[in-house]
């Protein structure tokens, strides 16, 4: 502890130089944090998606929706545990800018389990939705935004025409849903049966089907099996697991792995070289001071520890600044990749890296300082 003031004085002996080293190390670790954080974060968010839920959609991009009868066919395929569906209405409330998305589902447990990543619904709300054909569950956000309350009837203007030719759908609010990711557009949950009975076109069809399979490891095989079942029909399907979909979306970043490793290593090499040289220079300039310290009784070990300590303090401080800056960038990256945040493991790795950089770069200069012959140094 008694060395602390000495360490502090040593660090600020040349404030300009220390500030520049601090800045350089911070920039390097900010870069490390952004790159490594992005890579690990993407891997995490892929691993967090479910491999056991298969998304079954039309084979042609933007093709016609699938017949409702597919649900029974899907259920009969061995290995499929449960099947659920989702359709929807994109509408506006009062003004064209106030967009509301009505997610149409079957109000049952399978649907809840399937969407557990997205939202959760209390049993009483689920029961209320089941009991009210034109019922709707709203999020707290959207309720606050438009002043909606349970019991209100809300009209939505949509492009989906009803049998009478109008595109206005009215829902009765019967409860709430709590969504886990606050989206910018409002979400309400409604009954699929109400939507399908009411619409003029595409009756008896569904846009998205979901099959929960018993063995997530067989996702690719099951996807192919399902597509084969519906091959040669007028509505061919394209099946893929949630994880495969997110992998595909995020592959663009994942593919840059090699590059990230190369850049990070290059940065570290340049950094080590730079800091070592600066430390050497500092030791050279401080030779007379170090000699005086030795003369008044500081041992070789104490001198060694002092130099290493200075390097450690600077690198750890700079590492923290750099990693904090990198974490600050992540909320922006999160807009492109949902659910992305700075993984703690990367922060930990970064700090370990900072310590290693400090130790390696200080080793030679500290050794030289410790071995300084007093008589020569004082000359």
């Amino acid at each position, binding site marked *: 502890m008694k060395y602390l003031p000495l360490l502090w004085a040593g660090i600020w002996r040349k404030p300009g130089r220390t500030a520049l080293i601090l800045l350089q190390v911070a920039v390097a670790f900010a870069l490390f944090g952004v790159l490594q954080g992005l890579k690990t974060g993407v891997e995490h968010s892929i691993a967090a998606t479910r491999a056991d839920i298969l998304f079954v959609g039309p084979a042609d991009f933007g093709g016609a929706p699938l017949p409702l009868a597919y649900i029974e066919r899907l259920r009969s395929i061995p290995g499929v545990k449960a099947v659920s569906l989702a359709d929807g209405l994109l509408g506006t409330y009062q003004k064209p800018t106030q967009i509301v998305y009505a997610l149409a589902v079957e109000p049952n447990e399978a649907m809840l389990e399937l969407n557990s990543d997205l939202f959760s619904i209390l049993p009483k709300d689920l029961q209320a939705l089941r009991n009210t054909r034109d019922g709707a569950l709203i999020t707290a956000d959207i309720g606050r935004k438009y002043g909606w309350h349970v019991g209100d009837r809300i009209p939505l203007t949509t492009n989906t025409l009803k049998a009478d030719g109008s595109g206005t759908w009215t829902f009765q609010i019967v409860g709430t849903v709590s969504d886990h990711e606050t989206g910018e557009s409002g979400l309400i949950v409604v009954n699929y049966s109400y939507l399908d009975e009411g619409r003029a076109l595409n009756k008896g069809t569904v846009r998205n089907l979901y099959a929960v399979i018993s063995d997530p490891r067989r996702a690719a095989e099951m996807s192919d099996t399902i597509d084969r079942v519906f091959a040669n029909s007028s509505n061919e399907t394209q099946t893929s697991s949630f994880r495969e979909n997110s*992998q595909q979306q995020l592959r663009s970043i994942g593919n840059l792995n090699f590059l990230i490793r190369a850049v990070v290593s290059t940065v570290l090499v340049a950094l080590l070289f*730079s800091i070592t040289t600066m430390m050497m220079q500092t030791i050279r300039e401080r030779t007379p001071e170090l000699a005086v310290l030795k003369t008044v009784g500081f041992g070789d070990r104490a001198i060694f520890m002092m130099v290493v300590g200075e390097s450690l303090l600077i690198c750890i401080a700079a590492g923290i600044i750099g990693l904090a800056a990198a974490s600050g960038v992540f909320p922006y990256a999160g807009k492109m990749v949902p659910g992305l945040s700075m993984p703690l493991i990367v922060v930990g790795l970064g700090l370990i890296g900072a310590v290693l950089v400090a130790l390696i770069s200080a080793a030679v200069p500290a050794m030289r300082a410790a071995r300084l012959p007093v008589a020569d140094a004082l000359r």
Partner: protein
Amino acid sequence: MTNLARQFWTLLRMNLAGIPARLGLVSTIIVGVTCAVGVLVSMLAMVVGARQETLGIASPNRIVLTSVDAPSPAQSSISPDDLALIEQLPGIRRNAAGKPIVVLQAAVFIRARSRIDGTRTGFPLFGWTPGLTDYQPELRITAGRMFNPGLHELIANENCVRQYEDFEVGAKRHLHGSDWVVVGNFNLASPVCTIYGDGATILSAFGRKTYNQANLLLRSPADFVAVTRALKANPALHLKAQLQADVLAQNTQQLNGILSFVSYFLGAIMALAATIGAANSLYAIVESRRRELATLRAVGFNGAPIVASILSESILLAVPGALIGAAVAWLLFNGLLTSPLGASFHMAVTPALAMLGLAWALGIGLISGLMPAVRAASVPVTVALRAT
């Protein structure tokens, strides 16, 4: 003026002569610049490689016709009946049989599993009307044979075989209710997987009535103007003409946009770190020369030549860094096959890229040298007179 110039030269020679004595600090500057330039040039080698391979198949004689109001070929629609009208346009080269070289092309989307991670990706399958080999004589079948019209046959370029499953000769693919056979592989430098088949067969299999674009081979690039004029004058053809190179460049715009952004972003951060490191080293060099500089001031050297000499030194020191960085990038990555963002192509380190790296290095040298140079010129004369 001549006096100042002479002072500058003397000082610069002194600076450079002192390099061996300050090898550690000097090599820090060089290593920093090497890393920054190396990373920038290596990353941009992807952008250049992708562009070269995309435009490698472009020829100024080839033009593309699409619907007037279509923002991209995907939204464009050309009826097979229009082929006869398009063939009457002026300036079109004729094949050995004397027929104008015009091929209609339709793009439909199919999916395939990646060999690397098993995920499925979608990409276009192009259906052509007869005449593909007249239009693209450089297309070379490397395995198997050409597809036959009227049959469910495909050919895929080597990029597909490399990246995706089931594109080797003989592989069967199930598309829209029927089995298709890959009968050949072809060599056509393109950063993306490209699959060809017979146009009429593909249109009927995918339930389509129209093609997306018409490809024309002109007698000479100058005929482009004649075609444009003829199209404007012909109300029966609601089409516009573009150079093939422009259409291809649009296709890879997104890929190159992302890669360029990442390259310059990383390059800029690396350059920032290198600049800080170099500035620190230069400060230390100036620091160690305080008495020498003060003495020079005392014997009549001016501030301006001192500033200029230190700046020149730092810029000169950046040059070897840039050359080493570009050379390392060339050694490691030139011609290397890379597959970022679903594309696959060979990276290219060109002289132009090396020059760009050099420009960045000079920038790093200039900026890092500014403050230390001013510091050097402002060393008070009294420092020289004081004893240590």
